[in-house]
Every structure is written in C-alpha cells, then in structure tokens.
C-alpha cells in the first residue's frame, strides 16, 4: 500500500515545524527521512503515528485516509512507530507488554508472539520482565508487537542510539526482510552511514520543508549539503586581528549521556571565532560543555590564559571569564516566571538589589538589543528571538571565552542578525568565540576556522574563508580530504 503525505503543516507558536510537507512512499521501500535536530522530522513522524495532530494536510495509506491525532487509530489504519525509547511497561513481562491494548487470549498471544519473533530472527523470552531487557531487545519486542497488530508502515525514530552493533545488524536484517515482504520502513536518523547502509531512498527535511529526495546510494556531501543548506558566497567576511593563544586544550576526553568526544587538541586565540560543525551527536555537545566546565567526567587538560582549569568546578570557569550560552533557552538558561529585569539582576547585579538600577539596566538592554518586551515582563511570554536577546544581555562585559550552542537556531533573520552583531562586537575586546552550529552558511560567514566533529573526534580543522561547500560536506560526512 502506498503512503501518501499531502501538505502537512504544523506550527508551534511562531515556529513552523512542518511547512507543507508532501511525500510519497511506495510499498516495499526502505525510506530514510534525514534532517538535522530541529528540522521537523520528529514532528512529522509524530503526526504520521498519531501522537500529534497537524494544523492542516492529510495522510493516506493505500487510498484510505489515516485519521490524525490518535495513536490507536493510526495503528488500526496501519501506521506504527517505534520510539527512540521504546514504550514498554517496565515491570511487565514481554508477553504482557505484547498483549497490552489487544483482546488476545493468553495462549493465542503467546503463539503469535513466538511466530512473529521467529519470523524476524529475534530471540525473545516472552516471560522475561522488560526491565531486565536491553534497549535493543525492547525495540525488538516493540517491533513484534506493532507487526502483530498488522501495521504496513513501520516508523523508526533514531533506533540505533543505545543499542549494540550486533543488535543493529539484527535490526537492519529484520527491516530488510520486512521491506521485501512489502512493508514500508521509514527510517528517521541523522546518521548518514546507517542511512546509506540500510535505505534505498531518502527525503531530506530542513527548517520544516522538504528540500529534496534522492535514490540511494549517492555521494555523502550531496546529502550533507541538503541537510545543512548551501553556502551563499559572501565577500563581507572579515576577521578581527587575532591575539595571543588564549585557550589551550590537550588530549581532552569527555562524555555526556550517550555522546562522547576524545583526542581533542585545540588552541584558540584571543579574538578568534571557531565554529564546530558535524552531524548531530558527533561529539560537539560534550566538547562544548567540557570547555564550559559543565561536565565533571573529563580527562586531559584545559588551560585558559596560563591557568589550569581542568576538572575545576563550573563556578571557577565562570570566574575566569568563560561564558556559556545554551541552546535550550527556556529549558536551560532562562527562568520562565522571572522578568527581564530579574534576569539581568541575577546575572549582572551585585550583592544588594536596587530595583531602580535593575530596571534602568533592563531598559538600557531592551533598547540596545531591541527586545520586544518591558523590564517587568516574564520571559516566558517573549518570542524565541527575544529570549535569545535576553540571554545575550545577561552576558557580562569581561568574557574571555564565549561558548554557544546553535546560537541562531529557530530565530528569524532579523534576530539572527542582532545576535551576531552583538557577538562579533566582542572580538575587539579579545573575546574568543566558539560555537556549535548546523548551519553551514552561518559557520562559513562568521568563523575564522571550522572544526569538524565526526564520530566522537575532531576530524579536521579548516580555515573558513578557504573552504567550499563540497569539501565541508564531505568532511561532515566523515571523509578526510
């Protein structure tokens, strides 16, 4: 049965997560949906599987309209989704989980379970408690469950993070077999290697829109360029005069959650702008957070202006002039209920509070950064761009190293301009700027050098003015030039 997605749109406030997305997937396809974090692929999959309603658009499967906004109805219509963290009830056994939501008799269920698992080559004990199963085994259980409910479209959202190589092979073999039986397998990932290994076709999404479709295999850099956007040739690039070496990193290793980075050798000069590029999850996040002093598990050394900061507490980094601008804003960085004036007071104020002074400081910042808000407005009510400006206003004057995660993600062009004007002005004081971005244009336009992360290491550091889209794309895809 052919899956037809027609002009699906979904807005979250001002953000267009899905902007009129259409695609058609034939039965028997192993189809990848590629896109950077925030591109909108998860939203689309949630809409397909009924976990989220769409603002407009429709989905049909084999000519039948699939009801949106109801996971049970989606499964009944034939679309099932395997979540990144499989939805199982941990204290239940595999069989009990399998039976949830069905009216199968115990014996029938056991037979169906064993048959389906055997068909896919999974070895699963129906009486084992799921808590004691690995993530990979829980995925297998979930696939078995969805198939037994008769789905003909199986969506997998980043299924390979957290499972072993052996389990991945087993999973891929099962998916190939399902496709050969005529099922549609939709594989959502940002791991190019796996997409190239498994899938025969791909749709790339960026900023909520479909930017292209390709048959696979195709050259890596083509996919990377589609994911990250073209580089608009720009002649306005100007570097500040570089100062002395400021930050020295030797044999750094750090990990955070499932991500890690190793063997980092880096020297950053005062006034330099260093961009960190890479596919999502290649180690950029642990690297940046280790440099900010936020990850306790660090090996190697970090030296700032001659003083050793390795394994010092975060507050020591803060005192030395290291400043971190997170990507999450409301999740990390801001306080939803507090006002603009209170934010600035927290970040810049002294031991005693003078609200008159604080309010004037806020008014001055609102003026300087053209923030749309008043000093006494809680930041929760501001738009993303204005929240980012509040974060900028919270930055002290004497920052020696400024670290940023996706500084302009989700911002409109005007806000992005304000952000970069403010940040680049800091170079004159000798501030070194290091930022992670998945926007090639932004990286090339603002950086002196770009460090490319791949698979937990820095693959290469290139000079930004000299790099072209093809070579940067190949590097991000893991190919050394």
């Amino acid at each position: 049965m052919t899956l037809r997605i027609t002009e699906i749109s979904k807005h979250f406030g001002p953000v267009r997560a899905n902007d009129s997305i259409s695609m058609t997937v034939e039965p028997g396809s192993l189809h990848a949906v590629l896109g950077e974090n925030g591109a909108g692929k998860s939203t689309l999959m949630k809409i397909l599987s009924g976990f989220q309603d769409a603002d407009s658009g429709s989905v049909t499967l084999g000519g039948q309209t699939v009801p949106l906004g109801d996971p049970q109805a989606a499964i009944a219509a034939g679309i099932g989704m395997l979540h990144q963290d499989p939805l199982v009830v941990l204290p239940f056994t595999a069989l009990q989980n399998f039976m949830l939501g069905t009216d199968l008799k115990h014996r029938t269920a056991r037979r169906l379970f064993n048959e389906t698992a055997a068909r896919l080559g999974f070895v699963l004990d129906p009486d084992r408690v799921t808590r004691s199963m690995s993530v990979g085994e829980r995925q297998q259980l979930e696939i078995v469950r969805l198939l037994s409910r008769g789905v003909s479209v199986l969506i997998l959202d980043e299924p390979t993070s957290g499972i072993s190589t052996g389990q991945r092979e087993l999973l891929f073999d099962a998916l190939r077999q399902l496709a050969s039986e005529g099922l549609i397998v939709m594989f959502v990932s940002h791991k190019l290697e796996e997409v190239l290994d498994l899938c025969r076709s791909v749709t790339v999404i960026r900023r909520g829109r479909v930017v292209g479709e390709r048959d696979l295999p195709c050259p890596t850099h083509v996919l990377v360029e589609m994911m990250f956007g073209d580089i608009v040739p720009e002649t306005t690039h100007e570097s500040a005069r570089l100062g002395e070496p400021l930050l020295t990193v030797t044999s750094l290793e750090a990990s955070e959650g499932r991500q890690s980075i190793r063997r980092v050798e880096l020297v950053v000069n005062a006034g330099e702008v260093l961009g960190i590029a890479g596919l999502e999850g290649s180690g950029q996040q642990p690297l940046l957070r280790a440099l900010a002093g936020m990850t306790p598990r660090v090996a190697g050394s970090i030296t700032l202006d001659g003083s050793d900061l390795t394994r010092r507490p975060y507050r020591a980094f803060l005192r030395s002039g290291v400043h971190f601008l997170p990507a999450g804003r409301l999740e990390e960085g801001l306080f939803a209920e507090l006002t603009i004036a209170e934010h600035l007071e927290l970040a810049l104020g002294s031991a005693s509070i003078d609200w008159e002074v604080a309010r004037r400081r806020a008014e001055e910042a609102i003026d300087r950064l053209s923030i749309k808000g008043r000093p006494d407005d809680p930041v929760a009510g501001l738009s993303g761009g204005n929240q980012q400006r509040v974060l900028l206003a919270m930055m002290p004057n004497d920052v020696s190293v400024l670290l940023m995660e996706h500084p302009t993600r989700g911002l409109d062009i005007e806000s992005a301009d304000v952000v970069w004007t403010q940040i680049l002005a800091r170079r004159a004081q000798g501030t070194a700027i290091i930022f992670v971005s998945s926007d090639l244009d932004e990286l090339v336009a603002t950086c002196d050098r770009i460090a490319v992360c791949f698979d937990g290491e820095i693959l290469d550091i290139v000079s930004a003015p000299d790099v072209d889209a093809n070579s940067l794309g190949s590097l991000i895809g893991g190919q050394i030039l």
Partner: protein
Amino acid sequence: MRRFLISTAAALVVATFLLLVAGTDPIEALSVLASGAFGSTDKIADTAMAWAPLALAAAGLIVTFSAGLWNIGVEGQVIAGAIAATAAARWVEGPGWVAIAIGLLVGTVGGGVWGMAAGLLKTRGGVNEIFGGLGLGFVAQAFATYLIIGPWKRAGVASTSGTDLFREEAWLPTIGGTRLSVVPVALALVTLGWVWWMLRATRFGLELRAVGSNLRSARLVGIRSEQVMLGAFAIGGGAAGLAGALVTLGIQHKLVPAVAGGRGFLAILVVLLAGYRTAWVAPVALFFAAISVGSSQLNLRLDLDSSLGGVLQGVIVLAAVLVAGWQARRKAETAPIEGDT
C-alpha cells in the same frame, strides 16, 4: 482572588449539601460557626492564637515553595521547635521573660535544624524532600512522646497527656484576663512582612525564586543552589519551629504529643489556597483558624461532629486546586505550545 472566591463558593455548595444531608439548617450552622470563632472576646482570642502559628508555618512554607521544594515535614519542624522551647522553659532560670525569649529563640533554631536535616538529606543524600520530611516528622513525634512519658514525665505518673505545666512566669503574657497574647500575633505579622520583603528585595530571595523556577538555569548563572535550598529549609523550618514554641509557651504551657496538631498540613493548604502569595497568607490563615476554632461550637450547639470544619477546609482547598487546574488548562489550550520538533 477570583480563584479564592470561586473555590469558596464551590465549597459552600458542598458544605450546604452535607449539612442538609445531616439534617441541619445550613444558615444556622454557618452562623454558629461564625459566632464560635468571633462571638466573644475569648473566642476572638482563641482564633487569634490559632491564627498566629498557622500563619507562621505558612510563611515559612512560602519560602520553601518559592525555591521549588515540597517541604512536607512542617509537622516535625513544629514539634522540634516545641521540644526545644520546652527544654528552655524547664531549664532556664531567672526572670520569666528571659526564659520566654530563650524558648522562642531555641524553638526557632530547633525547627530550623529539623528543616535543614530534610534539606541535607535532599542535597547530600539524594532523598526526595517529601520522604525526608515525612520521615523526620515521625522521628520528631516519637521523640516528643518519649520525652513526655520518659525523662520529662509528670511527677508521679507518666501520661501521654503531657509534661507538667511550666512555671507561670515562663508562660507568654496575655492581655488582661483574656487568653490573647500579643507576642504570637506580632511575630507572625513581622515574619510575614519579612518573607514578603525578602523574596522581593533581596538577592537571596531572587536566587531562591530562580532556583525554584529552573535549577539548571540557576546553575548556569552561577547560583550555589545547594546553599540556597538549605537556606530555604532553614527559614521554613525556623518559622515552623517558632510556631511550635508559641503553641507550647502560649497555649498549652506544657509539651503535649499532639503539639503540632495537623498545623503543618493545614499550613500547606493555606499556602495552596493563597496561591503561593505572601500577602494572601494572613487572611486565608485567619479564615482557616476561624473554621477550626468555630467548628467546636457545632458539636455543642447543633450536635454535629466538629470534624465538619475539617471537611469544609479540605473541600475549599480541593476546589481551589481544581479551579487552578482548570485555569492552567485553559491557558495551555489558548497559548501556543512550545514543543520539540
């Protein structure tokens, strides 16, 4: 304000229904309740004396709630304060006012220490403050009972009805022949005012609200969130301990096992109904104290069980929480949702 009115109206409807089921005229019952709380000088005195410890404990709770901490252990902190104040009243010699002053001071410290214990369990031991607070409450209760039937037992008989009365000089002074003492009322008002000011005008108050709003962001701007949390627990526990000391020195004049008497939990309800706003704590606590005191008359005058007052309080808070939930849901439905894409 609207929430308060809606929930009170809803509670009145439920109460009316209950009274009709019980075969009583609701208007009469409510007037009995009112006259039981404010009908005579003595009753006003009782209501005021019930109000002060409740308002104090609630003021302390505002501080811990602002820091995002569910300080459920208020009962234990009240008892800890009462024990400390009893020790002072029994052991401190000399003029009565010295014993009283020391009693109130060590009561505050005792409650504060008990609060900090829950805080340390959370920040150092990873024990959720709800469980830590409940556990410490049981410990305090058991310790008080042990003291009453053990080392501090009444001359001759050990009884859970309490220790011997303190010497009269160590009782809180009252106005004329009434049961009203100015000290608790004044201390409660001062504490409420201080909490209001502290949360708005001091750096500690701002950091407290920041920690309560977003712990990760607080860490990012360099706030020492552990210290801030411990400070909140110390203040919350201290206010509860002071409440315990006032009950002991001003109302009971001895240590009784039921010294906390549910005030700790009632204070949580007060704060919920006040919508976590300090300015609203005083009137809401007065309302609750009046119901508590007045409902004893229901039994005497109408042969109704006095627990009806408790039912009324509970229904009001449930209604308030429900109204708040509706409002939040309405807001969520009309406002754009920020979600991951």
